[in-house]
């Protein structure tokens, strides 16, 4: 089914989508040596590409790293990566695009890339691939390692792999605690 032909809601049931969202975990320990098929990497990147963005600027650049040696080197510069993922997607902001957002451009671009990362994590989860978003990495170090041009800034790493340890769902603040209805203070029951 093409995107144009898909019904409103995309043909995906609301229950299925919510289950997908709720069962995604941030996985930090992966099975060693398992390769993610390139077709699955392509689907994950495509999910990121279809994220919303402010003024439809699409300020992102994604670098999918599958080469074990490059992964090892990125890990050496990324204290937030605890084990050896099968792949890493480096999510970057392309400043030549984001500057079209004016003074809000930098903030908007971070939000846009974050939404792309969430799309990717959900798509990966639907494929049985675990993920974890990592902010603790040396940005200038990774930029140097991957030969990024000056205007392309890495802002997030998304590690991908097959879960060796699947964490339990962490505690969530209740809806009545975080959501209000019509005005602040009217708790959502």
């Amino acid at each position, binding site marked *: 089914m093409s995107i144009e032909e898909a019904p409103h809601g995309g043909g995906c049931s609301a229950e299925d989508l919510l289950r997908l969202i709720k069962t995604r975990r941030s996985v930090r320990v992966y099975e060693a040596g398992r390769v993610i098929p390139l077709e699955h990497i392509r689907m994950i990147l495509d999910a990121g590409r279809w994220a919303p963005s402010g003024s439809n600027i699409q300020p992102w650049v994604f670098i999918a790293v599958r080469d074990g040696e490059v992964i090892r080197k990125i*890990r050496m510069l990324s*204290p*937030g990566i*605890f084990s050896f993922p099968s792949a890493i997607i480096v999510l970057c902001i392309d400043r030549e695009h984001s500057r079209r957002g004016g003074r809000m451009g930098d903030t908007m671009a971070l939000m846009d890339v974050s939404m792309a990362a969430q799309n990717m994590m959900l798509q990966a989860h639907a494929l049985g691939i675990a993920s974890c978003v990592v902010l*603790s990495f*040396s940005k200038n170090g990774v930029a140097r390692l991957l030969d990024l041009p000056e205007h392309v800034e890495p802002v997030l790493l998304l590690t991908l792999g097959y879960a060796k340890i699947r964490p339990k769902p962490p*505690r969530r603040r209740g809806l009545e605690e975080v959501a209000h209805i019509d005005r602040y203070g009217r708790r959502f029951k």
Partner: protein
Amino acid sequence: MTGMGEGLSEELFELLSFMISSAQGLFEEPQSYGPLRLLEAAKRLVEIMEKHGLAGEAERRIRSLIEENIHLVLSSEEDFKAFVDKLVEELASIIASR
């Protein structure tokens, strides 16, 4: 350098890289990430020692305690701090018995 020396050298260099890149990140990261990174470095050091037959029961015990409890940093800073205190007590016992 050849053989085991080369492998050990590379593993130690990875640890060195972890420590230096951690130092850079810690200027802006949450305060509790300081102890987190130091404990992760300690764990990685013991892993290298174990791989090269340099770790004894005491080092393995320390590594095991870190592995079991390091996740507390994500759930409760108070529990994480209590664990670090306990780990130091354990370390003191090991030091005293040497």
